[in-house]
């Protein structure tokens, strides 16, 4: 059974449109989402007060991406010199195999996990489950989502889609304990329950917010302290680190950390930071005896040197979700993807090489709020527009490195040729390319439209005709939703009724000296 079949589908539907419709009609979800209101202006305030910090952070991220392979070699050798065991995972499958392999080799029975989007991306909990290893999420929101057999719906507050009553019900159902519908009571219940897990845990799994290439330091931010517990009590620590998390210098953390925490939660710094440099040392009584770092590619390197490289600057702060008018109405599950919101709409098709989330780039108003909110200046709206074009037709990402591969026979999976300069044996995920589709009525319509408007006379005649047609055939205020022939596209998009006279007509009249222009 696939993960998706087994998961509780909070927001059902075959595509984004159906799921969005469902989400908007769910009163409990809409009530829970109201709580996101307080984060609406967080990113804007940071941009206003700390513009210079933003610029410096954006530059640091680009510095790494400009020469990621060198930084990867650098961070690998630094980590190894500290006694860290470094693994290179080309695909999500490789990462799961490596991590489950570590757990088996170390005789691990219970894994305690700190919230990590990278481990969600590689579906690590399911891999542990299949291998008969118990894995417990320890971030409170992530724990709630795990026991409800759901996915996180927001990368910073994973259970934002649930009301307190729903959370209480899930915890009562899974534990059989009597828990009051009260924030304090739930918090204290979780402390007791999860503390026992920490003491039993043999292996801690975390992500990493940053890894410094010069010192090999892994930086983790949390507010609860579960990240510290996962890296203090278990005898093994595994950090799943997407390759773009590297920063050149340890001192760069002083720029990136406050920016991340201010944008993510409005805190000048999170309550806890852990900076981990190698495993437990001689004479120390706690900290992991062995520390593994799994550097995860999963189609990231293929984006380097393309316009999509920008997306790898992302620091996973969640600001673009918080400001997105679409996300704020439909919540994370409508995206049916690990990464949701504007960054998810870009990243999901990219990381799956076009096989997942093909309809997501279209699920945007292109209002640009995400671009404005992004603390590292990723042009999210531009990338969405580009993806819409690139995902059309054969679905090959034309912007991606090495140009689009020819469509394989019958649209079956094929393997890419290994890239040059790749520092470890390469086995990329198969690229699934659907067979080309015949041109749709809409694409023909757009082609004709483009042709007609290429000439001033075509523009003049067609707009005059359209004005007359619209005003006589569909004279209501919401004409575009009832105009015959185009409602498939305009059902959810309203347009004003055209003015009786065009601007061009009025301008010409004015130039002629007509006083009633």
């Amino acid at each position: 059974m696939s993960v998706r079949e087994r998961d509780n589908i909070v927001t059902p539907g075959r595509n984004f449109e159906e799921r969005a419709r469902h989400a908007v009609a769910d009163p409990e979800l809409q009530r829970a989402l109201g709580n996101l209101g307080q984060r609406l202006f967080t990113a804007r305030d940071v941009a206003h007060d700390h513009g210079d910090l933003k610029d410096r952070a954006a530059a640091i991220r680009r510095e790494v991406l400009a020469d990621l392979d060198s930084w990867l070699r650098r961070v690998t050798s630094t980590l190894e010199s500290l006694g860290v065991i470094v693994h290179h995972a080309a695909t999500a499958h490789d990462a799961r195999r490596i991590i489950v392999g570590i757990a088996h080799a170390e005789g691990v029975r219970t894994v305690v996990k700190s919230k990590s989007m990278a481990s969600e991306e590689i579906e690590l909990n399911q891999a542990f489950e299949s291998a008969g290893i118990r894995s417990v999420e320890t971030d409170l929101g992530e724990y709630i989502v795990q026991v409800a057999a759901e996915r996180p719906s927001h990368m910073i507050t994973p259970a934002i889609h649930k009301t307190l009553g729903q959370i209480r019900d899930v915890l009562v159902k899974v534990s059989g304990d009597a828990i009051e519908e009260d924030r304090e009571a739930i918090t204290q219940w979780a402390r007791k329950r999860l503390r026992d897990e920490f003491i039993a845990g043999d292996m801690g799994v975390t992500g990493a917010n940053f890894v410094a290439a010069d010192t090999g330091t892994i930086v983790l931010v949390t507010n609860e302290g579960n990240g510290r517990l996962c890296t203090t009590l278990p005898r093994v620590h595994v950090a799943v680190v997407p390759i773009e998390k590297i920063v050149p210098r340890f001192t760069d953390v002083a720029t990136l950390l406050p920016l991340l925490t201010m944008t993510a939660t409005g805190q000048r710094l999170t309550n806890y930071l852990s900076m981990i440099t190698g495993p437990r040392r001689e004479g120390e009584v706690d900290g992991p005896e062995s520390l593994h770092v799994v550097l995860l590619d999963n189609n990231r390197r293929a984006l380097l040197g393309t316009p999509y490289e920008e997306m790898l600057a992302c620091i996973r702060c969640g600001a673009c979700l918080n400001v997105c008018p679409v996300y704020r109405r439909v919540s994370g599950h409508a995206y049916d993807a690990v990464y949701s919101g504007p960054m998810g709409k870009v990243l999901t098709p990219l990381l799956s090489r076009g096989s997942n989330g093909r309809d997501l780039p279209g699920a945007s108003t292109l209002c640009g709020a995400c671009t404005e909110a992004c603390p590292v200046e990723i042009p999210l709206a531009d990338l969405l527009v580009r993806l819409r074009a690139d995902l059309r037709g054969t679905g090959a990402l034309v912007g991606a490195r090495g140009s689009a591969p020819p469509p394989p026979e019958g649209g079956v999976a094929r393997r890419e040729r290994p890239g040059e300069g790749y520092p470890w044996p390469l086995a990329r995920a198969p690229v699934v390319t659907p067979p080309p589709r015949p041109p749709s009525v809409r694409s023909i319509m757009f082609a004709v439209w483009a042709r007609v408007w290429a000439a001033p006379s075509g523009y003049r005649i067609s707009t005059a005709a359209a004005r007359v047609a619209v005003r006589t055939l569909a004279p209501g205020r919401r004409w575009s939703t009832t105009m015959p022939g185009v409602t498939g596209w305009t059902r959810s998009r309203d347009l004003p009724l055209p003015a009786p006279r065009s601007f061009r007509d009025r301008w010409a009249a004015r130039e002629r000296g007509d006083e009633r222009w």
Partner: protein
Amino acid sequence: MTAPPPSVERLREALIVNRCGVDGPLTSDAAATRVAEVAMSRAAGGPIALPTRDAGVAALELDSRLGALGAHLLHPDDPDWHDRLPGAAVGVTSCAVAVAATGTLAMVAGPGCPRATSLVPAAHICIVRVADVVDELADAIARFAAGPLPSAVSWVGGPSRTSDLEMRTTFGVHGPKTVDVVIFSADSADSAGTLAE
């Protein structure tokens, strides 16, 4: 008589915003008395975890102070430290550096200074030397960058917290439920003035 540096006042304010208990700056002697008092009251008869090679704990002679009060002490070199630590009521540490702007205390792991002392017990008491207060995070990072980094630097702003329940903050979810900070100046002339005011 000298007033405490502005960064110390800033640190006090930030720590209070972060929901820490704050005392000082005090003289070494007054600080030791205060730490012992808070530790005994937070412990309520339960064990108090103390590091064995912590500069601040040593400077305030907390082992003998707390011992004299009949405290039940737990040290990292005790053979059953691992089993007993989850039952400890209080952990006392000092910090290597404190960031005034954010109210953040950075603790360094090492032999005799386990990471868990400031993490596992329900109450954490942290001793801050005035000389270790810096203004910004960047200053603290620069200090660490100047030397070899320890296996772990644990930065703490205050009691453990979460906003996973409808975005309202609750405290004590995983780490300590209370954090008490006692600021002291090794140079007693400095802080005697403050006390006299």
